[in-house]
């Protein structure tokens, strides 16, 4: 189990939440199997996965809306999974916000403090503070149905944070927003998390969102953790073929190692690996156009025909057929014209050895 944390994350390394061997079945349907994961204090952890990967179920087990079929969830010295949701010092921002329609914005935010029977003066102060923080004080007296989706999102956030939870769970909170607002909220949410210093567990299926916001990403696939690492690491050194493909674009190269040399179709490069089949991930941006310059020491070169060229603004993605069934996708700076015959070049150190990701049911 990878437990690497980003050096730039600014987190203390004290563990806040510990998920131990959690499994969940619905009847015969296995949704989660043997999940173990630690969340540090002040960490922004993203659970990333496709729909049906079990990410929401894992979140609901932490919140207490589902009970795990096996395993334990601990918060510090406290066993969390035995407690009803209303006793857990965990708050949730729901996917569709789940604001109480019969209460005003202000009453929604005050809800947690009211049921905890805090003094009214304290409630008034903290609600105002929370609304200020999400810039929604002007709408304090509105009903949720009278404000926009983005505003409802902020209220849901304020309603959770006002209780000063030790851990905030966010279930695809940005998925209902349009692209622009979504990008803006990603930045706001991240800076808010830094400011309040509360651990966030953020669930999403959007790998870009996960990359932008997280200290660490836990990649979930068919109910099992594929890789847990910082965005940089999971992108730069994906552990499995699935991780490499799910996060960003990649070329998966199926090769054969023999006597310290990898052979993959027309490509060969030296590698200190044991003999046998091997799978490599090579990011398109690590493949350059050789452009007639002499080969750098140790770099791999291959000639091919450009089959497809897609303009992406600053860069272009080109699909190059290199013969022997080998197709490489390369990201090149905008070339300014159509390409035909090209010579590609990459450094063998950029070809990352990954594990196969066998099909699961």
């Amino acid at each position, binding site marked *: 189990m990878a437990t690497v944390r980003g050096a730039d994350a600014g987190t203390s390394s004290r563990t806040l939440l510990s998920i131990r061997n959690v499994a969940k079945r619905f009847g015969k349907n296995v949704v989660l199997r043997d999940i173990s994961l630690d969340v540090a204090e002040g960490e922004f952890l993203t659970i990333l996965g496709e729909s049906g990967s079990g990410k929401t179920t894992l979140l609901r087990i932490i*919140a*207490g*809306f589902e009970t795990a079929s096996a395993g334990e969830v601990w918060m510090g010295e406290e066993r969390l999974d035995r407690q*009803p*949701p*209303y*006793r857990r010092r*965990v*708050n*949730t921002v*729901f*996917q*569709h916000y*789940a*604001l*109480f*329609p*019969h209460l005003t914005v202000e009453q929604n935010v005050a*809800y*947690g403090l*009211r*049921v*905890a029977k805090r003094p009214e003066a304290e409630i008034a102060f903290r609600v105002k503070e929370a609304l200020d923080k999400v810039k929604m004080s002007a709408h304090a007296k509105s*009903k949720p*149905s009278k404000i926009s989706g983005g505003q409802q999102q902020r209220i849901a956030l304020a*309603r*959770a944070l006002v*209780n000063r939870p030790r851990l905030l769970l966010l279930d695809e909170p940005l998925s209902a927003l349009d692209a622009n607002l979504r990008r803006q909220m990603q930045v706001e949410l991240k800076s808010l998390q830094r400011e309040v210093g509360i651990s966030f567990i953020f669930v999403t299926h959007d790998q870009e969102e996960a990359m932008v916001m997280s200290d660490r990403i836990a990649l979930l696939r068919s109910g099992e953790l594929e890789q847990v690492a910082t965005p940089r690491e999971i992108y730069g050194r994906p552990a499995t073929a699935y991780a490499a493909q799910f996060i960003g674009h990649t070329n998966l190269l199926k090769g054969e190692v023999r006597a310290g040399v990898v052979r993959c179709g027309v490509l060969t490069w030296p590698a200190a690996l044991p003999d046998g089949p091997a799978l490599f991930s090579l990011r398109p941006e690590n493949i350059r156009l050789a452009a007639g310059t002499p080969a750098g020491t140790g770099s791999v070169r291959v000639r091919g025909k450009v089959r497809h060229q897609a303009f992406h603004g600053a860069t272009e993605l080109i699909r190059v057929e290199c013969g022997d069934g080998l197709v490489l996708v390369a990201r090149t700076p905008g070339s300014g014209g159509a390409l035909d015959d090209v010579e590609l070049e990459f450094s063998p150190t950029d070809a990352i050895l990954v594990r196969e990701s066998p099909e699961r049911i």
Partner: protein
Amino acid sequence: MFSRAYKAAVTLPPLVWVTVFLLMPYLLMFCYSFWSVSASQTIEHSWNLANYGQLLRVNVYWQTLLRSMGIAARVTIFSLVLGYPLAYFLSFYAGEKKDLLYQLVIIPLWVSYLVRAYAWKTILGSDGVLNTLLQYVHLTKHPLEFLLYSPFAVVLTLTHIYTPFAFLPIYAALEHIPLNLVEASHDLGATPGQTFWKVIFPLSIPGVVAGATFAFVLSLGDFLAPLLLGGPSGIMISNIVVSLFGAAYNWPLGAAISFCMLLLVVGLLFFSERLEKKWSFS
């Protein structure tokens, strides 16, 4: 879009129906309420307010009206007290048995009203099921007389008959509450009790108002239950209207009473609709 002819073709039949079978009879009844009956048992078409005066002056009329409202109010309260927990249980805790239990609530509605009213007669009568049982286990020596032919019997029977009507709108309102609101409430630290009073109940108020309106309006106008089980002390206002239109042959007075009840009910419906609107948020 639809042509004018098409729109006319679909809206006209119901309009004609409502005019001929609802508005015109009401209008006729309204006219009757200002006429009178002569000594020779003919209707005199002289316009006056004597019938309405009589309604206020003669004790038996307004007292029976008040008693009917009292019975209807009790039926409403009992129907809500029985219907709400049932709806709540079905909506939140019944799980897979939900559909079956729902059918069990609905099926009695398919059974003839008369059968259900007579069933209570068999149960409550002096040699009925209940009295026989009570004497058999030696709880009482003589049959309890107050069980049948009393306001008690009327309230019991009407509660039995109209509880499904109170149950249905409450159940519908509860089913409409998104489950994530309940989860959000628990998530924010509210116990199940707090969640009920702060989230579930407020959001079910439109259903409660609709259910209460059904139970009250339907039982206020009921005349079969008091006729079969009410006895002299359990008479309701509709029984008086029936006898005025029948044996007593005083259609004008019957029309005046009916019209007052109509106003009462329409006023109530208007009020309950305002209340439902105020408490709905979707």
